[in-house]
């Protein structure tokens, strides 16, 4: 585990893009699925992963809303 993954140094999730958040989530999953995860770190990493998942879900939700609006506008303009 590197210092960059330390809970105290993790950047706020608001600053992350979707792709970066997904990459970090995958990395945490690979780490947690390993056999040598320190129990003390486990909860922090899971919490971080949960935050990332939450972020990504928000982003997907937001994107879906925007896309729905845009497509609705396109349809309205086409009509």
């Amino acid at each position: 585990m590197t210092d960059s993954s330390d809970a105290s140094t993790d950047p706020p999730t608001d600053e992350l893009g979707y792709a970066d958040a997904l990459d970090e989530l995958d990395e945490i999953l690979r780490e947690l699925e390993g056999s040598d995860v320190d129990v003390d770190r486990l909860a922090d990493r899971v919490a971080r992963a949960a935050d990332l998942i939450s972020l990504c879900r928000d982003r997907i939700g937001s994107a879906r809303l925007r896309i729905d609006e845009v497509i609705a506008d396109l349809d309205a303009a086409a009509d």
Partner: protein
Amino acid sequence: MSQPAFDFGDEPADDPSNPTYSVGELADAINDQLRRGFSDGVWVRGEIDGLRHSGPHTYFALVEETETGRAVLSVSLFAPMKRNLTPLLKRSRLELTNGMKVRIFGHLDYYAPNGRLGLKMAGIDPRFTLGELSQARDQVVRRLVAAGLYDANRSRPISRVPLRVGVVASVGTAAWHDFHQELVGSDLGFRLAVCDTRVQGAGAELSVAAAIRTLGRRSDLDCVVVIRGGGARNELATFDAEPIALAIATCPIPVLTGLGHEIDRSVADDVAHRALKTPTACAGALVEAVAEYRGATEATWSAVAALAERSLTQARSSLTDRAHRVARRTHAAVERADERLTVRRDRMRTLPGRRLEAATARLDTARSTLARRVPRHLDDQQRALDARADRLSLLDPANLLRRGWSITRDADGNVVRSVRDAAAGAVITTEVADGHLTSRIEEP
């Protein structure tokens, strides 16, 4: 000619055969004897010298240089006889002057008041004088021809614009005035270099020759003009003199003469580049030459102007033709361009519509694709995220604890992973799903 015999023997003074004359009586006797000896008068030839006029009378000496010395005879031409001779002299264009060689007729006269023997002139032979002049003139001409100088000045080229004129003249005379007025009246811008010189009388030959040579040395003259106002034929003899003829013949600048003689021609006239009869005619010749050149120049300019005008007209015509051709071609080109523009305009009318239709179709397709694919993509993302969430859920210690797993820690809070990590009597804390259990190890 008989001579009276005078016998001055021992006869008594009152001897009638041997009378004694008083001075007056002797003068009368001498004159009687002279009249008897030269009863019809006498012809005598010689050269005039010491000519003087006293009232209506004229006096001179007739001289001859002989081997034994100079012979002199006093001559008186009294007014009545002078009036008689004047028409003859005029007809012959002669005038009595010093140095003139003459053959005259007269009567010898002993003039008692001064005791001098003289000749009362009563006639003259003009042919003698003219012959003498002609002979002298012929000699000068022969010498000039022999020296190859007779045509020398005539062979020199004269400027077509003789505006810079050297003048040998006696300034103030009628001749000078006529010449000057003629040039000034022409308004042709003549520039004169004048040598004011005696042109007749004693010393005229040398002074005229010197003046010609002086002007001939100048490089800023087109010609030299020698003028004189006319006069007696024998006065013209000055211009038959060799010094003047030589000066003209050897002058490097063309020499023109205007010596005031309608009939006679001097040697100076013969050897000059051109001989005019009068000073006025001489000036007229210069004016005519310059005017002719000016006329020729103006004609040339007129021809140049006409040629230029013709060239301009041709050029203008050619330019107009070209302009018309250009205009025609331009017109055709404009029409063709207009046609091409019309074609394009027509294409523009239909093309954008077609393009827009195609673009609209593509856009519709894209929109459909977007509407179809994006939610699908989001769904994929959602599913992938859900899978990750599931995986995370499996790994979450809270879930593990809920499934019956626990975590044991020593008094320091360190996770107890092995029996070796806890000694007998040590207090440990076990975390389970719903709380913590504190235990003391009996036996490891």
